[in-house]
Structure formats: structure tokens, C-alpha cells
């Protein structure tokens, strides 16, 4: 390629860009900046909006507290996946203090069957949750005073598995809640499974924990 052709090309590009930039008025520039700002703001808001919990839930018992309150998010093609966080309260009973617990719960509800009208049945809901006692009397890893591997487990964090069922009722668009769901669950935790697996004496029934709850769908 001849040098003269390249030179002409570069000159043309430079003049074109110069024409666009110099040809803009201050108003145009201001408007472009405002649009860009709006777009950014929109992205930012919709990003955080996605984090707004879709529903609130209350759960009674279930080895995570006498009563646990929390919020949850449903997602997936059929909204079959749910993630919940909850805080629970365990009264002191015969111990020396009451306990507050935190639960991270993952649900899987693959089916939803219409019961006619506004009623729905979710015939199987299953999943797992991790519960931690918010108290220094319980430890995640045994304190350093112990020889290593002395107890080999955490008194503070329990892992639970559960299965249950739900009934839901649609309240319609202008109600405080879009839908209200009642459920029950049967659960058990890691240390109970170990105890039952190694002993005939500890029956499955002995290690099950029954809970009830309500989900209030807002979004």
C-alpha cells in the first residue's frame, strides 16, 4: 500500500471525529451525560431490587428455635428453588440462658398441583439447613486448650435435612400478600443421624423433629 493512501485515510478519520466532537453543542453533551447517568442508576437499582426478599416466613420448632422469623427468595424456571435466612429464639427452659440462632435454609419444591380455585398443593418440599447458635458457650472449632482432634465435632453448627408438604392460597393482586402458604416439615440433624445409624435403640422416630410454618408471599 502506498504511503500517500494511508496518509489520506488517517486525515479523513481525524477530520470525521473532529467534526462530531466539535459539532456537538453543550446541551447535547449535557443530555448524553444525563441519559448515561439514568441508565447507570437504573442498573444499580434493579441490581439491588433483585435482592429484595420475595416472601417472609415464620416457622415453629424444627430444632432451630421455638419460633423462627425470616425472609426468603424463590428462583428458577418454576420458582422451584428457595433460599431463606431466619433468626430463631430458644427459651432457656432448664439451661441457664435463652439462645438466639441463625438458620440458612435451602428448599426444593419441584411440583405444584392445583386443588381447584385459588388452592394449591406442593406435595413434596425437601432441602437442608444449617443452624448456628449465636453464643460463645458453643464453638465451631474446639478451643485451643484441647489437644487437637479431642472432640472432632462442632457444638455450634448443626446440619439438618428435611422433607415436608405445603398448601397455598392465592389472595389476589390487591391483598397485602399475593399468596399465603402453610407447611409442615420433618427434619433431623447430623448428630442424630450418627446416633441412629450406630444404634438399634435409637429409632428413626426418635430423631425426627416436626415443625410448622407459614410463608407470606409479597413479590
Amino acid at each position: 500500500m502506498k504511503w500517500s493512501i494511508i496518509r489520506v485515510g488517517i486525515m479523513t478519520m481525524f477530520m470525521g471525529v473532529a467534526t462530531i466532537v466539535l459539532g456537538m453543542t453543550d446541551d447535547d453533551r449535557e443530555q448524553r451525560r444525563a441519559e448515561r447517568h439514568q441508565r447507570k442508576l437504573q442498573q444499580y437499582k434493579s441490581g439491588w431490587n433483585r435482592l429484595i426478599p420475595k416472601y417472609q416466613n415464620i416457622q415453629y420448632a424444627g430444632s432451630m428455635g421455638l419460633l423462627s422469623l425470616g425472609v426468603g427468595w424463590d428462583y428458577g424456571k418454576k420458582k422451584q428453588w428457595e433460599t431463606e435466612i431466619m433468626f430463631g429464639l430458644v427459651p432457656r427452659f432448664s439451661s441457664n440462658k435463652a439462645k438466639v440462632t441463625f438458620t440458612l435454609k435451602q428448599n426444593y419444591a419441584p411440583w405444584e398441583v392445583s386443588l381447584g380455585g385459588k388452592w394449591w398443593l406442593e406435595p413434596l418440599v425437601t432441602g437442608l439447613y444449617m443452624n448456628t447458635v449465636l453464643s460463645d458457650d458453643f464453638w465451631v472449632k474446639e478451643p485451643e486448650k484441647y489437644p487437637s482432634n479431642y472432640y472432632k465435632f462442632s457444638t455450634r453448627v448443626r446440619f439438618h435435612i428435611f422433607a415436608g408438604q405445603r398448601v397455598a392460597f392465592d389472595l389476589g393482586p390487591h391483598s397485602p400478600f399475593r399468596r399465603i402458604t402453610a407447611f409442615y416439615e420433618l427434619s433431623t440433624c447430623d448428630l442424630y443421624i450418627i446416633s441412629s445409624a450406630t444404634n438399634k435403640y435409637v429409632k428413626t422416630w426418635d430423631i425426627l423433629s416436626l415443625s410448622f410454618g407459614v410463608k407470606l408471599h409479597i413479590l
Partner: protein
Amino acid sequence: MKRAILYGIILFLCGCDLIEYHPYDVRLHGETDINAKNIARIEEICEGKDTLRFVLMGDSQRWYDETEDFVKALNNRDDVDFVIHGGDISDFGLTKEFMWVRDIMGKLKVPYVALLGNHDILGNGMDVFLEVYGKENFSFRAGNTKFICLNTNALEFDYSHPVPDFTFMYNELQDTVGCLRTVPVMHVQPFNVEFNNNVAYGFHALLLEFPGVEFCLHAHSHTLLHEVLFDDGIPYIGCAAMKDKNYLLFTLTLGGYEYEVVYY
């Protein structure tokens, strides 16, 4: 829908045991204060007896089936006055574990007392122990023999909680009138990592102040032990864990003591 609600209510009513607020909730039901009740029975059974026969077992922990077999084996004999559970009733300190062992041991025909083990202190297990069994340090008389049962799980506590509790031991020392023999019982023996070994010699010296100490008893090590720990000929005798399916049968007579390992 109505049917579903009805089934739900029935399930709830049938399964109140199914309601659990937390594995460490210490929500107790059933018998409590077992040691005090059984000590009254032991003292009554052994009153005026010159020969005592008792069983030392311990570390039932997660061996529920084996503990159940132990109870069956012991109920088949009628020559034992009482049983001492040397501690580690539970494995994780969970409330339910204490309930399970209490229900199993409750089927014993003879009375039993239970000591506090280090595993029983995990989480808030000690709160369960205090409610279901009673004090961490206690003593009783069987005939003219004094049994002094001590919490020696020092590693689980700090200095604000004396383990072993010398004040308790001094006070017990003032109550030895008419006592010909003393049997100290503990979960952890001196020189174990769980024991407060800074006071091991002082602890042993204070025990020897009691009348007629010929041997000391412990559990914890999960193996049969007979060790003289202080060069004075006094053995510390330890029972195995329930998984080994044996217990120690002690016979105390005016002339001395003997023990045998009984497998079941």
C-alpha cells in the same frame, strides 16, 4: 383440605415428642434429680451390711445398644447392691442423649448414681446433668463405707469453677464419723490431659486424709486400667467403655476388697 388439616392435627397430637426447639434446648420431661432419689435407696439397701457388692461402669456415650445389654445382664443377677455410672453419659451433650441413657438405665432393678463426664459438659450438657442427676460433686454412705464422687473434668472449665473442688472435699472430710472406708470415684484420673495436673499431688494427698482409702475409681479412658499413680500402693482402677461390653464388679468386705471384670 379439611382432611389435610385434620391429619395435620392428628399427627401433631400423636407426636408431641416430635417437637424439638433445639438439640441443645434442655427442654426436659420425665424423671429428674435421680442421684438423690437413688442414694436414699442405696443407703437403705446397704444399711448395716458388712459386705457390699457394687458395679462400676461408664462411658455409655453413643453405645446405647451395649448399655441396654448391660442393663439386661445386670437385671439377671441379684447379688449386686448398686451401680455407679462413671460419667460420659452422653457423647455430644445433646439433651436427647441424656434422655435416652436415662430411660435405658432407669430399667435397672438396683439403684444407680451417675457422675459428670467431660462429654456431658459439651454445649450445655451440664445443665441437663444438673437437672436430671443432680450436683456435680456428691457423696453417700453404703453401710459404713463412704463414696465420694467428684467432678474432675478440669479442662472443660476455667479457674472460676473449681475442679476438683477442694472446698467440697474439706467439707466432706468433716463428715466421716462412723465411716470405716472411703471409696473416691471420679470420671478422669490424675495425670490424664483432662485433669488439673497442677494439683494432682494435693488432690491425692487430700483423698488419703479420708478414713480407709484403699483404691480410687474412675472411667474416661475407655480401657481397663489398674495403675498406682503416686508410689503409695493405692491403685486407680478404671472401667472400660460400654462398647467393650464389660463391667467391674467390686466386693467389699471387712477384711478388704476384690474386683473382677464381668463380660456380658
